[in-house]
């Protein structure tokens, strides 16, 4: 806790990654609360088109709340959320998806009694497409094999791929992933890192991923943010990151 107050006192230097490019996702002075207890105390985050940003932090520091607030699952108290120039903070979840946000929640939350194919099809709701795009199956061949199986009977790693495919089906501009590595074996985590970068390169979308695993974040992210007690306390580009310093934020 000592280090918290130390870092909070000196405002972090924000690297100017965005520069002249208009951000794909711009969060300004975001406050969010469960009832009376405020969890996020005015976050400012900007994500450039095609950028992968990792939001790191220990349990209970506000990562999941940030994701849920962005998706409209936790109500916003004040501040603004801007996706590709459009304000979404007043919209319901489903309209935010239509504006270009997509969400892979912690614990994956696939629809367990529905088949793999039906799960992906739920993501098509806002695009009005009828068939699952072939490229999703190309990206995740295991889902094609399993497309008639019930989602609940898949392994953790397969469910994670399904949750990502479902989110991509809505053709998002910004993909939000909440702790995608949780409960997944290391070999599949590396594979997932590659897949995320491949998706970014193929579709040019921005990705915000919340993480506790530093190695995974370093593997995928262009920029790393550290969130603590609802504030951003550290920010650095992948190129000039001080691993030891970030690790200190994460150690309990």
């Amino acid at each position: 806790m000592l280090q918290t107050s130390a870092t909070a006192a000196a405002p972090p230097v924000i690297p100017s990654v965005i520069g002249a490019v208009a951000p794909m996702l711009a969060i300004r002075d975001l406050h969010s609360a469960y009832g009376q207890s405020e969890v996020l105390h005015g976050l400012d985050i900007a994500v450039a088109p095609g950028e992968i940003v990792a939001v790191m932090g220990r349990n209970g520091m506000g990562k999941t709340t940030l994701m849920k607030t962005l998706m409209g699952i936790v109500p916003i108290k004040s501040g603004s959320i801007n996706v590709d120039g459009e304000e979404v903070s007043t919209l319901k979840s489903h309209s935010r998806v239509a504006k270009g946000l997509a969400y892979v929640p912690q614990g994956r939350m696939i629809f367990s009694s529905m088949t793999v194919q039906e799960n992906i099809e739920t993501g098509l709701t806002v695009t009005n497409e009828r068939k699952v795009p072939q490229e999703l199956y190309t990206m995740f061949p295991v889902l094609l094999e399993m497309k008639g199986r019930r989602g609940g009977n898949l392994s953790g790693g397969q469910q994670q791929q399904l949750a990502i495919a479902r989110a991509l089906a809505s053709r998002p501009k910004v993909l939000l992933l909440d702790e995608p590595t949780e409960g997944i074996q290391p070999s599949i985590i590396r594979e997932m890192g590659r897949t995320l970068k491949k998706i970014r390169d193929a579709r040019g979308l921005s990705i915000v991923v919340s993480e506790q695993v530093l190695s995974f974040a370093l593997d995928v992210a262009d920029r790393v943010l550290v969130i603590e007690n609802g504030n951003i306390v550290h920010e650095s580009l992948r190129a000039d990151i001080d691993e030891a310093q970030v690790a200190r934020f994460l150690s309990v």
Partner: protein
Amino acid sequence: MFGDYSLTDLSSIFVMQGFAGLILFSVYTLMALGLAIIFGQMGVINMAHGEFMILGAYMTYLCSTFFQNHLPALFSIYFFVAMALAFVASGALGMLVEWALIRHLYKRPLDTLLATWGLSLILQQSFRTIFGPREVGVELPSWLIGSVQVTDTIEIPINGMFVMAVTALITAGVAVLMYRSRFGAQVRAVVQNRAMAGAVGIDTEKVDRLTFGLGCGIAGIAGSAFTMVGSTGPTSGQLYIVDTFLIVVFGGAASLLGTIASAFSISQTQSTLEFFLSGSTAKVITLLAVVGILMLRPQGLFTLKVRR
């Protein structure tokens, strides 16, 4: 209790009571389908479901008098118009009720019980005011009257067969809608995880409203079918609501197949026992059997096996 009957008598009794049971089964199935959709989807226990059925029955009654007085030439097909009208009327009222009342109570499931019970009282009184306290019956077109003589001792009423055919058609339609259509997939997604369904882009409020409307609309059709086997009064729906809940719980709340199977077993037991014993004893035995089975299998007859 079987001692006084010969073997042929007995088999005839079983066939005919079985058939009477099938008509009851049809009404129950339609009622329970609507209730299962609403309860399974939203966790809302709709105590006013019986009144939505009776609204459908009154619509059928209005339709039959209208055709009798103004369009006697088309009287033979009025029943199809009546069913459509019953569906639309009950469905529309259902959507209105969802918008005005139910949607404010999703986070308070016990309050929906009270609110819908109050609604059922309001509807009953409205029926009494509008249609009068006396029970009304509908005039059937001639092709639905009469029965088919199968053997000397077995005869099967035509309207019963018609009701069953309608039920089969609607059940199949609901099954296709829930398991083959996009709307059905959205409904099932909302059932499983409301927040997540919204986060993949499903308009959960719209789905809720349409689902509630659909469930009530099917109850309306059940009411239409009901006019063939009973007379319609302001409180007729009350008699059916308890049995229907029993069927939904017994079948396993989220399973369409379970609902049908349990409607079948309960109505058959009821109808066959009623012939040999008094109506209330038959009910007692049915209830005891259901309670006993639910103690052994609290999740109902049919459940899905998946990891949650």
